């Protein structure tokens, strides 16, 4: 096995190499630092495209698997194992796509300690990609926990006024969930004699007796990360206090770690527990959709509104996952990507407004459409995509999820999907409300008259995202082609357990 030819290694460790390189540059050379970091992020994106090129979309199995024994803890080996399937691939592409854009958004916003910022950002990227690619549970846990540290510092060092509180809350909430998961991982390793994902999957009946507990331990970790109602309270604080680039990564990618964890670990490893828990988790998802939407509507702070909209949107993803039909899960995966793009873009736009006026209070804006038409037009597209207007990515994702979960046998009743549909309407309400408060109506504040419109850099950040928004909205087939075989494989390993149960 020639490892240097494997794009998985490159895509995982290029950001780390970039971080080390940046660390060697002198502090004062800010533009060197910025460009080196950007080069590393773009190289990672290129590597992720290389990964896409080498990927066989017709198979739903793990591909390009790397498996190297790493160490043994008292007789149980821990592997350095990476692999990719359609779901993973999309997540990696999303990460590699968003990181350079987020970095670009910090180009002028972050002036102090640029070096530390870029190092942490690249470390974070390695951690995130590792979470998606890891095929050994201990390795997964290591990447999973490792992402906490750079994000903690991004919030704590470059965040806004309540940053220390938000950073600590973020760290401790996430750690609370993952520690129980660690116990579950050790338990499974002891039962099966391995931590390798593929081997554990093949021998899942060895720990089937405890699967309700194990499911719970994993689900807690992931539900906090998603976040699912009522474990979401860390999210508004972390999102609001984080710097824009941090919010983009937090919403765009880190929340997906939770949903991805459910898909990769909970569903196939504990199928019976999944089926039992499905209505409950789908119920929480629906509550999250409605609660998130209602709370978002009540916000005065634009960034907080976007944060709560995440709670609502991720509810759709979770509903899709736990409806457990081919269509709903595929829609859920697509919606993970969509949310990353749309909400990422929303945070970027709100960040751009903040850079101009240094407030996120919606009342400080109003009628600025005439002053900043380019920003207004781009934001309108972003808002509509987030509100799932037909023709945008959000529509495809949410529609597929709802369609797939209406008749889902795992849920047994169309009520879940029915109530979730109300969430689609509510999303339109709060998002258009946001847009209206910011851009429409008469210009209420004189100081906004001088607001500069977007510069080229800012347009360059938003345009790639919007291209993806409309691509997925108008022609989602290539994405669904990537998703479907993997989802099929996944559900094949879950559903036989359903037959056994009924």
């Amino acid at each position, binding site marked *: 096995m020639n490892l240097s030819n494997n794009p998985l290694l490159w895509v995982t460790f290029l950001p780390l190499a970039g971080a080390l390189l940046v660390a060697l540059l002198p502090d004062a050379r800010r533009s060197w630092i910025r460009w080196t970091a950007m080069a590393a992020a773009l190289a990672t994106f290129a590597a992720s495209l290389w990964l896409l090129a080498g990927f066989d979309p017709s198979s739903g199995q793990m591909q390009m698997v790397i498996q190297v024994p790493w160490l*043994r803890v008292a007789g149980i080996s821990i592997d350095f194992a990476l692999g990719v399937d359609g779901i993973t691939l999309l997540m990696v592409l999303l990460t590699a796509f968003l990181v350079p854009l987020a970095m670009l958004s910090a180009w002028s916003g972050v002036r102090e300690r640029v070096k530390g910022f870029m190092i942490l950002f690249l470390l974070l990227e390695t951690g995130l990609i590792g979470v998606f690619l890891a095929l050994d549970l201990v390795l997964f846990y*290591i990447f999973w926990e490792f992402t906490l540290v750079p994000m903690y510092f991004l919030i704590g060092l470059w965040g806004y006024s309540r940053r220390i509180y938000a*950073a600590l809350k973020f760290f401790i909430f996430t750690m609370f969930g993952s520690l129980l998961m*660690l116990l579950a991982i050790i338990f499974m390793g002891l039962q099966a004699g391995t931590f390798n994902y593929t081997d554990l999957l093949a021998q899942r009946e060895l720990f089937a007796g405890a699967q309700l507990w194990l499911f719970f331990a994993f689900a807690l970790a992931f539900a906090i990360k998603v976040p699912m109602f009522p474990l979401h309270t860390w999210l508004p604080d972390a999102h609001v206090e984080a710097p824009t680039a941090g919010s983009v990564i937090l919403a765009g990618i880190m929340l997906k770690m939770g949903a991805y964890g459910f898909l990769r670990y909970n569903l196939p490893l504990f199928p019976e527990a999944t089926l039992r828990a499905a209505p409950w988790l789908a119920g929480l998802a629906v509550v999250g959709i409605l609660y998130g939407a209602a709370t978002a509507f009540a916000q005065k702070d634009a960034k907080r509104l976007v944060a709560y909209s995440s709670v609502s949107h991720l509810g759709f993803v979770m509903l899709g996952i736990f409806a457990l039909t081919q269509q709903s899960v595929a829609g859920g995966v697509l919606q993970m990507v969509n949310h990353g793009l749309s909400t990422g873009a929303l945070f970027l736009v709100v960040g751009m407004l903040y850079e101009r006026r240094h407030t996120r209070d919606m009342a400080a804006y109003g009628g600025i459409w005439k002053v900043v038409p380019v920003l207004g037009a781009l934001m309108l597209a972003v808002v509509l995509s987030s509100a799932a207007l037909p023709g945008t990515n959000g529509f495809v994702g949410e529609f597929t999820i709802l369609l797939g979960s209406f008749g889902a046998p795992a849920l047994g009743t169309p009520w879940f999907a029915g109530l979730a549909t109300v969430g689609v309407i509510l999303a339109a309400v709060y998002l258009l409300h946001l847009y209206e408060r910011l851009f429409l109506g008469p210009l209420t504040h004189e100081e906004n008259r001088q607001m500069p419109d977007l510069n080229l850099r800012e347009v360059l950040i938003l345009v790639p995202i919007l291209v993806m928004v409309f691509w997925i909205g108008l022609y989602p087939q290539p994405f669904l082609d990537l998703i479907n075989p993997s989802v099929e494989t996944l559900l094949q390993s879950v559903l036989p357990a359903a037959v056994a149960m009924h």
Partner: protein
Amino acid sequence: MSINDFLAILPVLVVLVTGVLVMVADVFLPEGRKGIAALLSGLGLAAGLGAALAAVPSTGTAFAGMVVADGFSLFLDALFAAVGLVGIGLAYDYFKRMRLQRGEYYTLLLFSIGGMMLMGHANDLVMFFLALELLSIPLYILSGFFRARLASQEAALKYFLLGAFSSGFVLYGIAMVFGGTASINLEGIVAAVRDGSANLTFLLVGAALLVVGFAFKVSAVPFHAWTPDVYEGAPSPLTGFMSSATKAAGFAALIRLLLVVFPALGENLAPVVSGLAALTMIAGNLIALVQTNIKRLLAYSSIAHAGYLLIGLVAVNSSAAGDAVAAMLFYLVGYAIANLGAWSVVVAAEQAEGRGLELEDYSGLGRKYPWLGVAMLVFMLSFIGVPLTLGFWGKLYLFRVALESGLFGLAVIGIAASLVSAYYYLRVVVYMFFRDGEGVARRDVWLNLIAIGSAAAVVLMALVPGDLLQVAAQAVLRVP
């Protein structure tokens, strides 16, 4: 008595003889040249470390079965010598700065290290007591090394009184065990238990008293009351050394003793040790939450870590005994490295007259001294158990043992306690990086070397922990 008897405890002898040499040499050293004493001590410890690593000592019992040399004791010899070396590195610049550079510090430190090493070798209850006193008495004196400072005197007195008290427990326990089994030798005790001639009630009472006595040394709750005061009052370099090494010595004694008596008394003793573990984890971490002084914070942190280690001690009772001992040794090493590193930062930040020890004083320190700051961050993350640090593997290994032995409750308490600990360890990071302040730190080459070297060790060894795990796994006990 043959040459083999001496070879068996060669590292101990090297260290003790160096101690005597330093004491003599110190008399001839002029004021201001006391660094030579530090150098001599360092050389002696390096020789002891070399002897332990090269495994020169012959294995087996020696001195008529009073001491034993096996993988376990060799591992500990190496650990104590290494911790001692770092301890000298911590002390050298500090005492020069505090105008207290004296040779006897190093002599006493060496005697104490000798006692700790002997603890790992002890195979006889009287030997345990001898080792205990040899390691403790120099530490009582050293705690009061700042003769002019009230807190230091208080620390010494408190440590001495409670220490003497715990020695009493140990002695009484020894008497009880002797009464129950008519033997003070570990093999003899095992034999008496096996052939049924032992009085199990006396043995149980004796074992419980011994556990209490050594629980003082590892500062397990509720025998921890001395720890914060002594750690705060004693000179910082000594506290760093003490919190790493004394704990390991106490656990060495507990492991060997319990491994011997557990087969007979497991049912009775395991709940006691479990209770100690749970209490220590909970109380240590909870009280640490409200500390504002870095020395007290690290004192409670050291109590908390004793709690995690006690989980392993309970598991010594199970079929996973070998793994339990290996996990504890691994954890002790990981803790010692991170702990010494953290104390090197404390020593660097401490100002004259005991100022610079409040968390407030750490404001902005991490930004001003990025290397020191990043090192401290690594230590704190290792204490929490975040991956890519030795602390993570230590906890993984310990919790694995706990689950394997069916100690689910303790594992869950350990997890919850780790979560609580994240809050106070991160507070240190918050002060160092997220707040502005006027904190200053000493730039001493040895302190920087210890801080950065320990941080590098914590991270790099975490990438390839396999080797250390292997060494720890091989260092399991020769069960008599």
